[in-house]
């Protein structure tokens, strides 16, 4: 399980909708910050879940500090565009950024949002930041959109480079694409649940990644794995006890244990489908009402091996 994420600059966390990408990205961020890496969790889909978990307000486009060495940013397309234009063309760029016609253009161009947001994630990981006065980050954890959209976004820089052929966008596209393809700088973490659809989507992500940026996932994280409380022999004993139980609460407890075990067995089969290259890292099911920094910290303990 040598994912060595701490050696990368840019780590994309993706997977099917609802599998806990934000949770994994945030917990990884906590683990990295503990190591003293200046870390930022960058969210591409306009939400600010990392900051929310810490109870901190995070206006779109603002880098906020969550804890020692841990920051979060909900990437804002407009702002990313203004920064890009300013760096590209200085005052002329600012003029463009202020033009309504240009905004119409940027919003209408298919893929421009993806290009700009992924460009912003890339920018966070540069030693020389575009944003004046901004400090560089050791590690940028991108809380990416769900698999299909994430693959689309990862492909965008190369697509623009190809369509534009020459000119600044082509150049920028090529530079970002080269970073994405370089396993020394960029890694992808696939998040799944131990269920049919998320596992299938993880397998599809593996193929899609190869095609999009020529990389394999550096790590596969399986979220919300139930504990294995009963072996086959014990499950049999419990099943026999269930048919004889008359105490209402004991009956319910025996049923709960069997039901949980049946679900854990089904999960096991799904995890097996993921294979072992890389070996999936299992996170326990968190039996809590909400994930707060304490729960995230426990998940971070488990994720440390990926750094």
């Amino acid at each position, binding site marked *: 399980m040598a994912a060595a994420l701490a050696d990368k600059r840019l780590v994309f966390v993706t997977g099917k909708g609802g599998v806990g990408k934000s949770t994994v990205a945030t917990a990884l961020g906590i683990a990295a910050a503990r190591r003293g890496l200046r870390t930022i969790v960058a969210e591409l889909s306009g939400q600010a879940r990392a900051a929310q978990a810490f109870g901190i307000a995070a206006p779109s486009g603002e880098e906020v500090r969550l804890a020692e060495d841990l920051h979060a940013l909900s990437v804002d397309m407009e702002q990313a565009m203004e920064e890009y234009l300013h760096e590209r063309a200085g005052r002329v760029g600012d003029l463009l950024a202020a033009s309504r016609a240009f905004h119409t253009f940027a919003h209408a161009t298919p893929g421009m949002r993806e290009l700009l947001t992924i460009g912003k994630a890339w920018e966070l990981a540069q030693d020389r930041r575009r944003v004046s006065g901004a400090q560089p980050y050791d590690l940028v954890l991108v809380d990416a959109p769900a698999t299909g959209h994430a693959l*689309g976004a990862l492909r965008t820089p190369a697509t623009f480079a190809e*369509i*534009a052929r020459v000119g600044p966008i082509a150049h920028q596209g090529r530079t970002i694409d080269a970073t994405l393809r370089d396993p020394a700088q960029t890694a992808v973490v696939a998040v799944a649940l131990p269920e049919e659809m998320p596992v299938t989507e993880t397998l599809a992500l593996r193929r899609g990644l190869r095609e999009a940026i020529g990389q394999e996932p550096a790590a596969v994280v399986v979220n919300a794995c139930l504990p294995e409380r*009963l072996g086959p022999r014990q499950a049999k004993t419990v099943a026999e006890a269930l048919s004889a139980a008359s105490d209402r609460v004991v009956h319910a407890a025996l049923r709960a244990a069997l039901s949980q075990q049946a679900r854990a067995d089904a999960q096991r089969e799904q995890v097996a489908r993921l294979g072992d290259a890389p070996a999936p890292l299992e996170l326990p099911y968190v039996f809590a009402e909400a994930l707060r920094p304490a729960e995230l910290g426990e998940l971070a303990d488990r994720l440390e091996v990926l750094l």
Partner: protein
Amino acid sequence: MSGVADWLADTRVCVVGGSGGVGKTTTSAALAAGMAARGLKVAVVTIDPAQRLATALGLDELDNEPQRIASERFAAAGLPLGEGELWAMTLDPKRTFDELIARLSPDDDTRERILANRVYRELSDAIAGSQEFTAVAKLHELAQDGGWDLLVLDTPPSRNALDFLDAPDRLRAFFEGRALQTLLRGGGAGLRLLGRGTGLVLGLLRRVTGAELLSDLSDFFRLLGGLLGGFRERAQQVEELLRAPGTTFLLVTSPEREPIDEALFFQRRLRSAGMTLGGAVVNRMHVDADALAGEDDALLDLPARIEQAAGLSPALAKQVAAAYADEHRLARRDAANMAHLRERLGGRVPLLQVPLLEDDVHDVAGLVRLYVHLFAASEAP
């Protein structure tokens, strides 16, 4: 409490919405099968079914048109369809978008040039709302074809369920990017429309994007401009279909807080858009462990109680008690979230809960199990 058959009594089109990972696809398929079992001719349009489910239904062949599911598959699992028919299809968004472009193109030349345009070919997936819009466009096409008693649409998976409702507007705005077409054509009346400085903007634009990209984009938008009239009409019809009296939305959610909050947000949007919400289904409820209601102290003595009453070893009794404590905690969380949902939905929206099933639903037998829960409280057919 009533079952979904009552909610869908006079429904011709049922749109199933909710956030990703809550069981929308299986719920759509199970309710379509259940309505077919009531003698209706039903088609279900899904976006991305689990492979095993697709195989179980015989849906592996993708030709972007509904196919009839062999009734024997359901009869064998205990749900005879009788006179009813169940049809299903998996939507291919890219292909549906190509078909839409082809249908809206004023002539063959325009069609060929759009389909061959590099911006269209490489980036049409990235047109905001295109996948969502193609789903409703397909629904509309099937509704036009007629012959269906009920159409069920499983909406595309996305982080935000509202993407689906916003899609027609976003795509219309995209097609209507008239200011943009004028800008890219770079001349004449457009300059006055856009105000001063447009020539300058165009020059700067070339500087930050590169001339080739600009020329492909310019072509792309000019060609799309020719489709605008047809597209507007289509978007209008699609919106009318979504508001039609025979169209009902169903919300699907899991009992976790985030999907529930999203479902509530979706409901408010439906209401303000004048669309009908038929009911909400809460999947994956932890309900079994609720026997302890009101006597949480009993959790402490549970291992001993299990040991005595069931004759298990202390170690095993401890494991069983721990499993129960887990499930109990989740059952309480789910019940609280369910109460929140019920309160916020108000009394008029019927709610149905489906317990967590021990395995993913990935075959016909699983769909029939789900069907039993969805239709349990309905009036008999």
